[in-house]
């Protein structure tokens, strides 16, 4: 008879089995501990449901006290909505020109219903609002390559930006244009064209609240390529802000929201080309828009 492998009367296979079970239990306990302490979490894929809403807590820095205000009924509960004409609104005192930063915590970064009756006018960056499923095409007039000048004339699906606003009569209009003209149009000309666009929109949809959005920053690498630089961007945004102050339009400084500590587009938001947004950029942008309007 072959000799059996026994340890103190216990089968060797039983001993091995017990050791394996203990190892498995230890691994399970470690995994559970890591999960409970948040060190092991499911991958955050898009973190977005079908409606584009995100259920996570983020902190948003909002710049207040800027430019000129037109009261939006959603801004505060007791807002006077009698006169939505921006021309009649008060302007911010020059001494209050320096923006004051207030840090707020948004439990729900944005609510797509908030933007339901709104219109976004912009370039390829705004096309992501549709491509990522945040909004239906009816809420977005955006084309690759659009700039403040071509926005006054170019048609898409039979509409210009102005004729679309005329038909839609949106509650709010967010215009973000200029990134495409930086390299060859000149900041002054682009600002003049933006002024024309804003006036045209006011004429065809006088009850709409118009928000001019600063063009976003670019990454350091993109800046170094020289086509669109932060110097150009900051110069144009400065003119835009002055235009808004003169025209009685709210200026939303998205640019500063997306910058890293060095003043370039944060890697958290930047597409590989250093200019467009990843989905996180859109989330932050919408959160900033909604929060800025609601705290006013």
């Amino acid at each position: 008879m072959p000799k059996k492998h026994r340890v103190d009367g216990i089968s060797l296979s039983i001993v091995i089995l017990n050791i394996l079970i203990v190892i498995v239990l230890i691994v399970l306990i470690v995994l559970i501990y890591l999960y409970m302490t948040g060190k092991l979490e499911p991958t955050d894929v898009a973190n977005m449901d079908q409606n584009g809403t995100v259920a996570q807590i983020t902190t948003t820095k909002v710049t207040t006290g800027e430019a000129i205000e037109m009261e939006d009924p959603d801004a505060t509960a007791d807002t006077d909505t009698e006169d939505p004409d921006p021309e009649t609104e008060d302007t911010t005192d020059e001494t209050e020109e320096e923006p004051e930063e207030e840090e707020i915590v948004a439990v729900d970064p944005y609510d797509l219903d908030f933007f339901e009756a709104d219109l976004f006018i912009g370039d390829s960056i705004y096309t992501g609002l549709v491509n990522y499923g945040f909004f239906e095409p009816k809420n977005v007039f955006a084309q690759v390559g659009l700039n403040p000048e071509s926005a006054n004339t170019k048609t898409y699906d039979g509409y210009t930006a102005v004729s679309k606003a005329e038909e839609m009569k949106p509650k709010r209009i967010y215009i973000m244009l200029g990134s495409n003209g930086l390299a060859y149009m000149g900041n002054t000309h682009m600002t003049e064209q933006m002024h024309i666009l804003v006036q045209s929109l006011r004429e065809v949809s006088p009850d709409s609240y118009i928000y001019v959005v600063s063009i976003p920053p670019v990454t350091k690498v993109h800046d170094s390529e020289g086509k669109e630089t932060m110097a150009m961007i900051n110069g144009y945004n400065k003119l835009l802000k002055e235009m808004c102050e003169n025209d009685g339009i709210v200026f939303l400084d998205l640019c500063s929201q997306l910058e890293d500590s060095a003043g370039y587009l944060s890697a958290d938001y930047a597409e590989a080309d250093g200019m467009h947004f990843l989905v996180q950029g859109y989330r932050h942008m919408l959160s900033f828009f909604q929060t800025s309007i609601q705290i006013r």
Partner: protein
Amino acid sequence: MKKKILSTLLVCALVCGAAACSGGTPASTTTAAATTAATAEANSASVSNASAEDITAAVLEATPINSAFAQNEAMMENNFDGIDVSKIKEFSYYVCASGAYPDEIAVFRFDSSDSAASAVAAVSDRLEYQKKTYKDYTPDEYYKLEGAIIAQSGEWLYYIVTSDNSKAETIVKGFIG
């Protein structure tokens, strides 16, 4: 004797479990590209049972698109103006959602080859629109559009704009012939 039987059963169960784990992991992590190759080699004579989503997943694995995001029916209909959605049995459509690049891939399965053929015009219009849009915007990316592929195979229709259109088409053909 009982101890022997019990220990043998437990060891067998453990071994089987381990075998199942080791066998399951590669299966679940098999890349779409590998599936494609297998399909192309082993199933070239008959049309694959793969879905449109399987096909685009395989293409995206082999020729990735930056910020690839699946488009729903409304977005697809918006981009392929005039396409008859009632004739589409299934589709899978991805674009570079950030708008930075012209890359996109669409695979449609229609209710008949005639329906697929009649949709070619809508897809061609989309390509022309993209060419017009991106020609001056990103000249470095224009080669993707110049080499874009629109092709029909029976009830299938596909549209490819990637960094390597030939490679992408080979993968699609591996599924649908």
